[in-house]
């Protein structure tokens, strides 16, 4: 029964077809995992979740969940409008958002500036590898909330401490992915470059860095994702400005609608950033996975 043409009849055969496509369209390769478009399903899934939220919280239908735990979509929207126009804790939503995006962006640039060269150095030089491996591998699995107190003791409660925390969250994935990228460069390409008269530095720049580019971009994508994950922790103490700060103070006063609104805004911005990174990826490394 393994013959593909005999699969259609049975129930399990039909079920199987959802998960295994037929022969590939021209331009695709057969058997590549997860080919095909999932946009429709994704939209349906998002709408489903939203509908569930609406049904369980809207008073007209007799809310199943108290607004303290989960306010209705309408309530959250009203809050969004009021915070956007009047502000929350003397700051408008735009100001909160700008403060957070600025922090993440600065930390991201710093992490890329240090993480990518250090990753390259570690991958291509045993001295650097030996030197940087222990500290990075030690702190990498620690949760940011774990070393948050230490960053406060060391850097105080000002802007620096927040940037340090975000930087640390983004730095490790960039280093690791850069290293993986360098390892993924085919040795034949390196040999070919040397045989064409390239120097060591030229090979590093024109072959290894370029060849590692797909993984480096993945590292940047993962890094910025980690940044957003760490945002609330970074804005936990001594700041009024920032989406994370807004969420934390709203939770203290049990203003659940602001908490949810803040979460949604962070989610939307983080997702937009990811889409942007993916777009950049397609532009910068169109050859990814095609050789």
């Amino acid at each position, binding site marked *: 029964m393994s013959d593909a043409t005999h699969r259609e009849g049975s129930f399990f055969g039909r079920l199987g077809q959802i998960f295994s496509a037929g022969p590939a369209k021209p331009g695709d390769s057969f058997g590549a995992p997860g080919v095909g478009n999932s946009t429709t399903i994704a939209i349906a899934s998002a709408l489903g979740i939203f509908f569930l939220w609406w049904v369980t919280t809207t008073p007209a239908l007799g809310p199943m969940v108290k607004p303290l735990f989960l306010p209705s979509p309408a309530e959250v929207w009203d809050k969004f409008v009021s915070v956007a126009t009047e502000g929350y804790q003397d700051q408008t939503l735009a100001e909160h958002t700008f403060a957070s995006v600025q922090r993440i962006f600065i930390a991201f640039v710093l992490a890329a500036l240090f993480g990518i060269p250090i990753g390259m150095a570690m991958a291509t030089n045993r001295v650097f590898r030996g030197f940087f491996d222990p500290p990075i591998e030690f702190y990498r699995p620690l949760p940011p909330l774990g070393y948050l107190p230490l960053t406060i003791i060391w850097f105080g409660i000002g802007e620096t401490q927040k940037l340090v925390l975000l930087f640390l969250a983004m730095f490790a994935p960039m280093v690791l992915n850069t290293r993986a990228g360098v390892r993924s460069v*085919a040795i*034949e*390409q390196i*040999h*070919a*470059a*040397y*045989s*064409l*008269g*390239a*120097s060591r530095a*030229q090979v590093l720049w*024109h*072959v290894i860095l*370029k*060849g590692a*580019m797909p993984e480096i971009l993945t590292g940047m994508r993962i890094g910025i994702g980690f940044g957003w994950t760490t945002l609330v922790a970074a804005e936990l103490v001594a700041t009024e400005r920032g989406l994370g700060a807004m969420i934390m103070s709203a939770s203290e006063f049990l203003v659940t609608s602001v908490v949810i609104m803040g979460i949604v805004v962070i989610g939307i911005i983080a997702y937009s950033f990811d889409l942007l990174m993916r777009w950049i990826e397609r532009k910068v*490394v*169109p*050859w990814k996975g*095609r*050789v």
Partner: protein
Amino acid sequence: MAQVKGRSTSKKAKSASIKSRKTAAPPKGGKAKSNGSGEELRAEAVTVVYPVKEGDDVHALEKVSLSISPGDFVVALGASGCGKTTFLNLLAGFIKPTEGRVTLGGRPVLGPGADRGVVFQKHALLPWLKVLQNVTFGLKMQGIPQGKRRDMARKYIDLVGLKDFEQKNIYELSGGMQQRVGLARALTSDPAALLMDEPLGALDALTRDNMQELILDVWRETHKAIFFITHSVEEALFLATKLIVMSPRPGRITHEYELDFCHRFFECRDARKVKSMPDFIKMREEIITIIRGDELEGGNIHV
């Protein structure tokens, strides 16, 4: 008529020495300067031993000597694992011999360089560069200005028939086209010697035949020293001015033949005719017998 001179370094080779007409060297192209043209590539009693964690070390090559002069087309044949790739890596400078030495024009080879171009079995092109940029990559590394690079590359891009594909991405080309880009890339740096490791192994029969003729024409025009590895006996006989047959355990050259089938091709320009000449077929059978013997010894049945 048969221009076959066999020199044997092993007892089982029969001396098929028939008086050999010294094949006239192909006409010299008026090459001005190249990355060391007119220089001889020599391996002098090179031994390569790969250390192995458990068991005996692998003697991939044992006291192998070979010299490749400009205008020589040396083809290496032999059972799988007899050290052909190891030998090429040695000539290219990717590895250094355990014993013996490799020289180019008398100077020891201390590493890879633009004077020895390499064509790989898998093309090893850079996918982030277009075809033209791949071909000019070596010139760029040597600091030649862009306009000049382009002019120098055009000739070889035309030669391998990729004129209309200069601005294409590598991943948009077929396997045979990619291989031709690899050849044009190696040629554009104008190396003294061209080293090729099964460059046509992945191609279909027809493309392969065309590429063989192409490589011969390029060789005749550029008068380079070529070292070429293949698994196809026919290809080896057709291309070589000097054919070496290698045997494994330890890797060594067991037979050497001076051949002139390529010159016969230049005379009649009919590859199929050359490949069906009686002495071509006779040579083919003789060499297949030798290699089959090696493969059988190694427990490798298919030839």
